[in-house]
């Protein structure tokens, strides 16, 4: 029954190569190149462990991105729920057998890679929701029945991720899901109501937060509360960015970073390092590259024919925006510090893998844009 709904066209390999989105590829390469220099700088200009690993991952996952781009979009459509379930399965495995590092249990050992399933879940949620809303009629969307299932689909992984604990990723997963629900056309009032509900339940939520999470939130409102403890990261990050000025301190000359005042400079605070060394000009340039990336993904979404592909592209573009926004706001002191990597830039295999995987699905949407998936 399922296959009946799919109408696939035939493409020659040359055709596929022709429609590859080279613009997108160039942007990814540019951001990737910048990320290598940034990671290189965190090691004070020596080609050591982090740089080497980052470069290997970047190249590997970039090739994977190109390779996976040729998977038909209908494949993703067909296996969307399975993809989601696999990720959920891994999350459950992590819950029991995960590897613990710096106080949270997030990784599962796959021998060649320590995989962080929550990162994959960020993509799986988008794929899964795109599939789900692909079929739902506009008139049915406001129906409680069709609201209930996505909420369940969202709450389960979020809960598992919070348990690890990893508040940042959970927020990003939830955010991605909500973005798709929004795109699918759920009435504005639901968003307003749930927003109000969140506000009302905030005191209760805070009371069940872990002490370190509470202190992070309090610190966000007043970083000088504990300048050597919880507020240290944000204060040092602001100093680094601010002292960069318009042109920055210069490549490899970020004193805050090489004198080790900057925490987590490889991962969450990579933007800080970049901003310190390349200043306002560099930061704006990098932001612009991300905007181009998002713009490109959205414009691909406009030309695809199926709702699944459209929802996926728009959803993924919005999710990338969310990741970038949360990360940069965090290091600028606009949001509390929750662990959220900057796509492509941050050091970390799973995050790189999920972004590249997400991009390959976008590319697949483009290559097989003429594939029709019937809505009913």
């Amino acid at each position, binding site marked *: 029954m399922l296959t009946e709904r799919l109408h696939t066209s035939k493409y020659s390999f040359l055709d596929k190569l022709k429609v590859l989105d080279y613009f997108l590829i160039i942007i990814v390469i540019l951001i990737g190149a910048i990320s290598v220099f940034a990671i290189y700088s965190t090691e004070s200009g020596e080609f050591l462990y982090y740089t080497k690993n980052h470069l290997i991952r970047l190249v590997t996952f970039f090739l994977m991105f190109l390779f996976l781009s040729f998977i038909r979009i209908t494949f993703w459509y067909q296996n969307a729920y399975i993809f989601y379930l696999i990720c959920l399965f891994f999350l459950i495995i992590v819950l029991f057998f995960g590897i613990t590092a710096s106080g949270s249990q997030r990784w599962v050992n796959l021998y060649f890679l320590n995989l962080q399933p929550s990162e994959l879940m960020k993509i799986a949620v988008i794929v899964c929701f795109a599939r789900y809303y692909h079929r739902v009629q506009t008139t049915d969307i406001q129906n409680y029945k069709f609201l209930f299932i996505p909420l369940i689909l969202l709450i389960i992984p979020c809960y598992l991720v919070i348990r690890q604990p990893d508040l940042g990723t959970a927020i990003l997963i939830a955010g991605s899901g909500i973005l798709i629900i*929004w795109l699918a056309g759920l009435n504005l009032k639901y968003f307003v109501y749930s927003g109000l509900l969140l506000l009302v339940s905030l005191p209760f939520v805070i009371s069940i937060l872990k002490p370190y999470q509470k202190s992070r939130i309090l610190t966000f409102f007043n970083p000088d509360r504990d300048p050597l403890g919880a507020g240290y990261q944000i204060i040092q990050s602001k*100093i680094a*960015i601010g002292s960069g000025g318009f042109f920055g301190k210069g490549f490899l000359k970020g004193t805050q970073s090489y*004198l080790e005042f900057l925490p987590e400079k490889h991962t969450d605070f990579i933007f800080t390092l970049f*901003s310190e060394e390349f200043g306002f000009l560099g930061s704006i340039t990098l932001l612009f590259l991300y905007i181009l990336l998002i713009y490109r993904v*959205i414009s691909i979404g406009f030309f695809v024919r199926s709702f699944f592909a459209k929802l996926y592209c728009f959803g993924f573009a*919005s999710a990338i925006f969310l990741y970038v*926004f949360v990360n940069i706001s965090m290091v600028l002191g606009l949001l509390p510090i929750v662990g959220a990597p900057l796509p492509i830039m941050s050091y970390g295999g799973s995050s790189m893998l999920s972004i590249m995987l997400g991009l390959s699905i976008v590319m697949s949407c483009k290559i097989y844009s003429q594939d029709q998936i019937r809505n009913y």
Partner: protein
Amino acid sequence: MQNRRSSVDKGRTISRRLFILTGAKLLLLGGITSRLYNLQISDREKYEILSDKNRIREWKTPPQRGIITDYFNNILADNDRVFQVHLSLDEVNNFDQTLFRLKNILNLSNNQTKKIYKKKEKLKPWDTLVVSDNIEWNEFSKLNLYLHELEGVKPVVSSSRYYPYGNSSVHVVGYVGDASLKDIERMEEIKENLVPGLKVGKSGIEYSNEKLLIGKYGIKRYEVNSSGKRISQIDYVKESQGVKIKTTIDLEIQKFAQELLIGKAGSICAMDIYTGEIIAMASSPTYDPNKFTHGINHKDWNEIRDNPLKPFVNKSIAGLYSPGSTFKPLVALAALEYNILNPNLKVRCKGHIEMYGQKYHCWKDKGHGYMSLRNAIKQSCDIYFYEMARKLGVDKLAVVAKKYGLGSSILGDVYFDEKKGLVPNTEWKRNNLGRGWLLGETIINGIGQGYIQTTPLQLCLMTAQLANGGYKINPHIISDENISFEDIKSKIQKDIESLKLSSKEDQRDTYSPIRLYKNSKNIKFILEAMFASTNEPGGTSFRSRYDNKKYQFAGKTGTSQVRRITEAERELDLKQSQILYKNRDHALYIAFAPYKDPRYAISVLVEHGGSGGKTAAPLASKLIKKIIDRHELREQIRKRIANLA
């Protein structure tokens, strides 16, 4: 059809929602950009400063103290090379272990290690701890052998105060020690220059001239990482040395004077009677100021503190004594100036006299017989002076005594321990003791006993101002090149010559030296009587005279009682050696030399030394020879300085 329409609706919905979402994204992006603008462009300076504060840390290096020399540029207070052990706390991994190793290598006592732990508590984790500020060379070289296994330990060659002639110079120069909280509060310069191991002046010139001597600290700027470890030196502003201070002291004479006093408690002062330069200011007993530089140990401290002869008291300026008969020239001068008596007036001395129902004794039991004023000074007849003081009255005497420098501080604030002494008068007694002046007090005041209190340096100044013809001079111990001997001498000469032409006061101009007399004949008379006292048979210091005109001097002995002698004791007629040390008389002597064309004045005081003629005058005699012998040398230096100026 319906499906198709619905499908179009759905597509529109998605596009519309995306449009709204994009709007929201742009808003948020604007937020991020404005934040970036805020941090990196508006507040850039603020964050640059914070970033530098993070990465740059300053270490102060101790300033070099200015040196102190004598008149001939012999160094009295020097900066010597010392070997120190510093510990950079930021580089030490295990403090206890490192200190334990150091303790074994340097043979530190348990007490010392305890002190080091105490010191450490006050320091910040990146400060430098001075483990030892003065170790022997062999310990220092031994330490260098073990250095590779001692993290954070730094052998440092530093400079530290050293007094090459410590015992002889301490009462002039003073000494230094670690800056205390009091020192830091006392002076902004000390606070500013405060570094671990900073030494500051604790007494004498070292204390009063701290501002000039201290110099300016240096700064070493290092780039440090977040754990405070030094990465590289960015900048080194070199420390600078304090100003050199040149004193008017002649080291040779100072040393000689100090030697003369060995085994005695007392003081010797010598002064140029025209320039007011203090050539020697010895005080005995003395102590070694070098012991204080690195913290004096308990044994040495107790030894100095408990010495009954009081080494810490600078007797030249802080010792107060009755001047005894050395006061007589001034009493006689006062009497002559006020025309109280004719110098030819004869008074009969029977050895004692009854006045106001009280019996007063002369030092000579048998009496001097009939005395004139000249003879009374020469033989120091007390009876004559009782009579004279009675006629003169205490208030007039006080006026003259104060004019000649008694009763006030001489060196200003160079020595914080300098005492003013006391010249009593009726008003003083009424105000301070609340009782009226008794005539009997006037009588003993006439022989320099009673309430009157003077320092040896005051007596020296008094003598100098008599010897130069009765002119006010400016006594000082820190060399002043603006004071010219030729200038002062010629002015005084001119003033004396103008006196011969006309004795009218109003012909003098403001540049003339200040006269301390009304009639120069009176000064001459006193000086001549002092000459007789030394150089004529029967004079009280006749035995210490020089016949050689080059050394010939004039002086006046003094023997000051430290307590009242009872009638019973007078009957016993004990020799000084038979009396308890603390009850013996102080021996004093004042003199000026050479008698023809005098140039120097001296005062000698020996506490409980017995009679001035026997004890003090011989010391003075030796000192005067030394001073005259070195006169030419001093003149050469003086002229060289004058030429340079």
